[in-house]
């Protein structure tokens, strides 16, 4: 296997692994956050507005971790810096 296909294989495998592992934690965290928020709304329906707003802000914070992983996997696949380097070096 030459260097170019090594880079390609590593990029694809790493992109898949990044999404798989990177979405594991945030999805668990979001599930816990929504669970707590739902029980809080069930107990205090009057506080619904502020609870929902805080929930959205918190979900955005948690989700950004998964989004970082997604952006990195996109960079690895579509805009890989090593790919261009090895294409130039290999001719």
């Amino acid at each position: 296997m030459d260097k170019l296909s090594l880079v390609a294989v590593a990029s694809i495998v790493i992109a898949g692994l990044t999404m798989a592992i990177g979405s594991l934690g945030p999805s668990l965290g979001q599930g816990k956050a929504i669970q707590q928020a739902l029980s809080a709304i069930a107990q205090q329906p009057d506080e619904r507005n502020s609870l929902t707003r805080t929930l959205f802000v918190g979900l955005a914070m948690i989700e950004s971790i998964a989004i970082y992983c997604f952006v990195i996997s996109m960079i690895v696949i579509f805009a890989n810096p090593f790919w261009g380097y090895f294409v130039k070096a290999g001719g």
Partner: protein
Amino acid sequence: MEIVAVNQISPDQVILWSWSFITINVTIIYTWLVMAILVIGSWLVTRNLSTGINVSRWQHFLEVVISTIRGEIGEMTKKGVDDYVPLIGTLFLFICLSNVMAIIPGYVPPTASLMTTAALAICVFIAVPFYGISRNGVLHYLKEYFQPNFIFFPFHVMGEISRTLALTVRLFGNIMSHEKVIGILLSVTPLVFPVIMQALGLLIGVIQAYIFAILSMVYIASATSAQEESHKAEVSEGITA
């Protein structure tokens, strides 16, 4: 009609016109389009405002939008709501319109480019010290960086930078991922599923605009109100002493 190919990560790479160092790409064109719609639309509506009983329906629409934004900001901060409405409202309307217009064929949301979202996040990054200083003065603003003691100064600075980065990448990642999902689905199952994802994309676009506006309001409120409390505490201590 596909302007940005599937293997291009950002609409910045599609260059329409270039002359020496000036390049006009798709992002700039669509940013101008959104800006023009917002400016010309609100100019047309606010050209003849009326306070009587007969109010035009577009004036009703804009009044609903503005009063909703004011209400949301008013729940976050206690006083000085009208200081924040221009910035936060503009951010929300711009992001919301540029995301929602993604259902128009041939349109690429300018927020799918990292440059646009970085520019918006830098606006918030500058607005935080601006509002903090204009409300509490330079000394109180700078003092907040050394709370609870001077060891925490680098952490405060890192927090400022990393949350700007988070704002940038969150909006960019959400909108760009939606574009890519549509592009991939069109090549796999082109019949019904892209429509469902487009409908989901409308929801995501509005929620992301809301989150961007709310988070920038949270950052600005934390820079202004936290210092007000410590300032008040000092004043009350001074009174009791």
